[in-house]
């Protein structure tokens, strides 16, 4: 079984999920077995304004542990992450980061700001 621990920068209570990656997908949005898929499939909300289609950065997470247990980021994901507020070297889009290791122990941080709305936008 794999585990994912979710830490919220805004102080909301942490959540821990144990799951079997082989049972993915858990619901309809994001790549099957992605952080987004796992969280939504276990009734944990993660913003995904574009429906998990790599067209926004609202599912931006910072991977604190287990980065090498996730699928490699595509160029499309990297292009989108370029525009994420609070980008870090271990940032991923939750809808694209697939947990591939059956025994992975993943820790992610949900940043306080994960939006592309006009008030946070960079030059277009």
């Amino acid at each position: 079984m794999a585990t994912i621990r979710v830490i919220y920068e805004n102080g909301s209570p942490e959540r821990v999920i144990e799951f079997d990656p082989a049972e993915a997908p858990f619901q309809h949005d994001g790549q099957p077995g992605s952080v987004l898929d796992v969280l939504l499939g276990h009734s944990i909300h993660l913003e995904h304004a574009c429906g998990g289609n790599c067209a926004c950065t609202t599912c931006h997470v910072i991977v604190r542990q287990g980065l090498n247990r996730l699928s490699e980021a595509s160029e499309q994901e990297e292009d989108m992450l370029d525009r994420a507020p609070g980008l870090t070297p271990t940032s991923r889009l939750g809808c694209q980061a697939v947990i591939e290791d059956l025994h992975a122990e993943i820790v992610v941080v949900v940043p306080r700001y994960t939006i592309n709305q006009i008030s946070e936008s960079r030059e277009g």
Partner: protein
Amino acid sequence: MERPTYRARVERIFDHCEDTRSLFLRTVSDTLPQYSPGMFVSISIPLANETRVRPYTIATSPEDGEPFELCFNLVPNGPGAAWMFDRTVGDLLDFTGPFGAFTLERAPDCEMVFIAEETTIAPIRPMLRRALSQSAAHQIHLLYAAERSQHLLYRPELELLSNAYPRFRFEPLVIEHEFLYQRLLDEVQRRWVTSDSGRSRHFYVCGIGSGVLKLRDLLREAGYERRAVRYERW
């Protein structure tokens, strides 16, 4: 941070053709937040056993105010699209946003090329209008492709713009679906890769499927800067 949810009422419906529709929406108790051309809103779609969120690009310009327009087609087996198609005048929709990184707030100081297919003209339309209003000196191109001519949306408007702005070249293309992206790749290759060594142009590509990524790769591998090739894949 709790994200606000807005409610809008369907004020008008326009059918571009039998499977492509626009809803014109007006917010009920708030005004639509300020946004950049190209952004989308995230609509809450109530289905039988769950509520899903689906993105729909705002096809009108921020300068136009409300009502704002969402343009979409009826996707086979797409529950979200079917629900949207079932909306009637007076219906209420809940949404968050606007969101999005495929935007054009300020036109770059260079030639611009926009590429779209069918309903993916939705973000391109307000971006193009912003570019025309800001960029007085540079050429602007729009390659707009569809399998059937009735899927070339806003064609009269785009033709009017090309007449009004001599530096804007509008190129509608009717191409069989299986050849569509190869034709676009060939056009881009011929005109902006092979034809000259200049690499200062900016590209804005919106389309469906892997063809968008092939266009991206063609341009970047030809030497265009990564951030000069902007794209949104539906």
